[in-house]
């Protein structure tokens, strides 16, 4: 029905519109629209020429991607304000960044949008899984910032409905981006303090409207967060990933 009404509208619209070209007139007489969902179907086989072009790339990739690097003990979910997947990634980010940083790191934060799968199933974890979790080539960076800047970061996290943060954080905030309470490593947040935290360079560069971070100096190690996760899993013994449960790292109050 919708298509019908669109074509009617277009019909009326182009009435009287004509284009002169060598005594020939062209009129847009009708427009219809349609859309197809692409999914396994007997009438929609895979095109062989395309499959052949993909094959050598796929073979190279499968070698690298199908490598098992750990075992996930329990299903993890990506969720707001807090989920197991985000907790797990943020804790790894904190641990790996702590190894690289000379000082003492206070916490780590990862933007929600940087995680790209809704669920990480229990069972073997492959390199491919980690690429699915984080396809973006986000670099791990550390910022040492004054409390006023850190406050804006947590206001933004609250306004976004919660982002993955490491276990060092206990934040209670509102949807409007107000901080009700904030503890970092069990100590009340102090606006006069300086905090060191790890995060993706995308956010550090002001992405996701974190413009207040733009002019902060970044400590870089030339390490991608995805690679840090892979390295972390490879070095874990005996390679079984335990759940980072939801423990109230972030709570967002409803009105």
């Amino acid at each position: 029905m919708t298509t019908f009404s669109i074509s009617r509208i277009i019909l009326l619209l182009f009435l009287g519109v004509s284009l002169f070209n060598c005594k020939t007139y062209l009129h847009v007489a009708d427009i219809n629209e349609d859309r197809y969902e692409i999914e396994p179907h007997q009438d929609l086989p895979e095109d062989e020429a395309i499959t052949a072009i993909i094959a050598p790339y796929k073979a190279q990739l499968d070698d690298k991607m199908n490598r098992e690097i750990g075992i996930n003990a329990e299903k993890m979910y990506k969720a707001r304000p807090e989920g197991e997947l985000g907790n797990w990634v943020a804790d790894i980010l904190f641990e790996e960044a702590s190894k690289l940083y000379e000082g003492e790191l206070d916490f780590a934060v990862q933007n929600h949008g940087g995680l790209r799968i809704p669920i990480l199933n229990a069972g073997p974890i492959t390199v491919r899984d980690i690429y699915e979790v984080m396809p973006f080539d986000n670099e791990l960076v550390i910022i040492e910032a004054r409390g006023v800047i850190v406050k804006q970061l947590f206001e933004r996290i609250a306004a976004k409905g919660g982002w993955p943060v490491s276990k060092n954080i206990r934040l209670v905030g509102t949807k409007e981006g107000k901080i009700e309470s904030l503890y970092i490593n069990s100590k009340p947040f102090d606006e006069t303090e300086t905090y060191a935290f790890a995060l993706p360079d995308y956010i550090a560069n002001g992405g996701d409207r974190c413009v207040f971070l733009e002019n902060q100096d970044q400590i870089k190690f030339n390490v991608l967060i995805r690679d840090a996760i892979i390295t972390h899993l490879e070095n874990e013994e005996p390679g079984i990933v335990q759940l980072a449960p939801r423990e109230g790292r972030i709570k967002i109050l409803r009105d």
Partner: protein
Amino acid sequence: MKRRTFVKAMGYSSMMYPLIGSVPSLLKGPELMQLTILHTNDVHSRIEPFPADGKGRNAGKGGAARRATLIKDIREDVDQVLLLDAGDIFQGTPYFNFFGGELEFKLMDEMEYDAATIGNHDFDAGHEVLKERCDAASFSMLNCNYNLKDSPLRKIVQPYKIFNKGGIKVGVFGVGIRLDGLVPKQLYGDIEVLPAYEMAEKTATLLKEEEKCDLVVCLSHLGYQYESPNYPSDVIMAASTRNIDIIIGGHTHTFLKTANTVRDKDGEWVIINQVGWAGIMLGRIDVTIEKGKKAKCFSCKNEYLQHAVDNTIIKYK
């Protein structure tokens, strides 16, 4: 939305042809031509379908190989096809991380894409790499609001391209999103982003009025619609410009149930469409053009034709 069976089973186009074929039997009737626009957006390196592992709603969907079959089937059914992509070809699977977009472009070439526009993620390997990919491909990369300055893309990206599809002159141009805050600076160098609406209208007007295009199509990576009016969007662009007939959009991964129509600033209708992301869907817009010796549009007013055209639409929504 109900799942569609695919093009051969649909009977959509096969019903269109007898209709068009019957027109010349009407005395001195005009010639009718059909152009079929097929489009994707935000495919995000989804070369293979989503794993068919039952995880999530997209399991088993998408994939270049099935899309190619569908496109080939449609090409067999209709004479004139324009195959377009609205950007964010790159980023999202290891194919991009390891091969830097080489395969994405190769596959688009094999499917015979006519043109694409640049999405923010198409800079993710840097503008130099994007230029290399464009060099190797035979489809056109279009953008009218990036001042490319010293970027290597300057040699390859054009604001618009005019396609002659069986006598129909179609002007296609591209519009890109802001890069600041979305793309790390070092990846796009000194490219300056010019006001989207202004540049879009300027380009559309050139195509319509000077180049005398029969149809003006905008490939946009602005995004469909935002809560904040500060972000340029397809809906606002359509309403605040003139001379654009169709906007094929991207960026917001919007699964529209049907194309939207918005009146432009001259009161003319603009069609806006977007088909989600990851190559889960292929969009199709069929334009029927009447070619005649008279300034008056015969078929636009012809009740018989109107009736017949309406009957070719399969009600599936």
